[in-house]
């Protein structure tokens, strides 16, 4: 199957069920360059194999994805009306989302599809790939809240084979999905809350994508990360602002709030990027309380 066609097929299938969303995807895809087309091809090839392995059809995956899109609309309506995220308790979200295999499955599989369908997710992943090559000599790598495992899978492809990879996630379903998605075999998986994790060895590289907004006290989480990182270690983080979701409990109103927290926690920003999720500038998005994704490589 030709994968550019696959992207087309996915959008066509989405269009049948949700024309409004398909309209946005077509625009997204149109604005991206040929590098994107190239990457999308290999990503979809990989995803196709992964779906087969996990016995999920493309149609099911699209249904999951559209449910997630709808969740997001529903949460955004509430967010525009109240200015707050609907949920604020970790225990509640843990019970309702991370511990429920059905919810977590549709959540993670749709997140995986969003990597190729959402401009912002592609741009952030591209930023990650661009800079990660500087750290290939790392000897130890920890991913916190790895979800589907796309990021650690990329690092495992590029880093020296001697690097030790570990992946931690509070959701057993995420761990199972990551195990089938990630090509590298010798990765150590931990099914636990990051706050319960301890390690005798410190890490050269820690990656934590879209997790900071899932905890009640982000400052404590950054403190935890710092305690796990070598003094010369590097920390990659991504955080969305104004992003109501079924499991987001801490609201960042703008990138500056994130930056300030990172600096207060003792991190120095080496590279950073902000990507607006709509056809408006980052500043406009912040003003209108529309999601922007912030990502950075940090050191001490």
């Amino acid at each position: 199957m030709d994968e550019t066609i696959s992207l087309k097929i996915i959008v066509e299938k989405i269009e049948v069920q949700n024309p409004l969303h398909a309209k946005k995807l077509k625009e997204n895809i149109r604005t991206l360059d040929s590098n994107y087309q190239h990457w999308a091809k290999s990503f979809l090839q990989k995803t196709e194999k992964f779906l087969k392995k996990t016995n999920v059809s493309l149609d099911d995956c699209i249904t999951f994805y559209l449910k997630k899109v709808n969740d997001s609309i529903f949460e955004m309506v509430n967010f525009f009306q109240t200015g707050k995220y609907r949920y604020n308790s970790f225990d509640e979200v843990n019970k309702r989302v991370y511990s429920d295999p059905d919810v977590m499955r549709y959540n993670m599989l749709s997140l995986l599809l969003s990597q190729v369908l959402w401009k912002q997710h592609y741009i952030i992943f591209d930023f990650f790939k661009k800079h990660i090559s500087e750290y290939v000599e790392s000897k130890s790598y920890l991913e916190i809240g790895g979800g589907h495992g796309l990021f650690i899978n990329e690092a495992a492809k590029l880093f020296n084979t001697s690097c030790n990879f570990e992946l931690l996630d509070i959701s057993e379903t995420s761990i199972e999905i990551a195990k089938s998605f990630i090509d590298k075999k010798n990765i150590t998986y931990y099914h636990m809350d990051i706050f319960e994790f301890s390690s005798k060895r410190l890490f050269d590289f820690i990656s934590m994508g879209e997790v900071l907004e899932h905890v009640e006290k982000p400052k404590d989480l950054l403190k935890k990360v710092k305690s796990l990182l070598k003094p010369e270690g590097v920390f990659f983080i991504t955080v969305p602002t104004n992003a109501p979701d079924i499991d987001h409990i801490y609201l960042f109103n703008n990138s500056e709030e994130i930056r300030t927290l990172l600096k207060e926690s003792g991190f120095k920003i080496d590279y950073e990027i902000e990507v607006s999720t709509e056809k408006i500038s980052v500043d406009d998005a912040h003003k209108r309380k529309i999601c922007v994704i912030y990502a950075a490589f940090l050191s001490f």
Partner: protein
Amino acid sequence: MNIQEIISQLTPIFTEVLDVENLTLTPQIQADDIEEWDSLSHIQLIVAIEKHFNLKFTSLEIQGWKNVQDICSTILNKE
């Protein structure tokens, strides 16, 4: 209320939120027919419709919306 009455109340909401003039809404109109009706303005539309009709849609109700007719039917069902 019937569909026509709902449409006549939806028209000024669409006109204002989407910032378009001379809008004629019909049941069949969908996002592809109005350039300004995109994923972002869609949320603003839902917010404005909930406010105007003083109701709250469930997640399931907004899920199936493809055109103006779908929105009208949901509003009618909630009466």
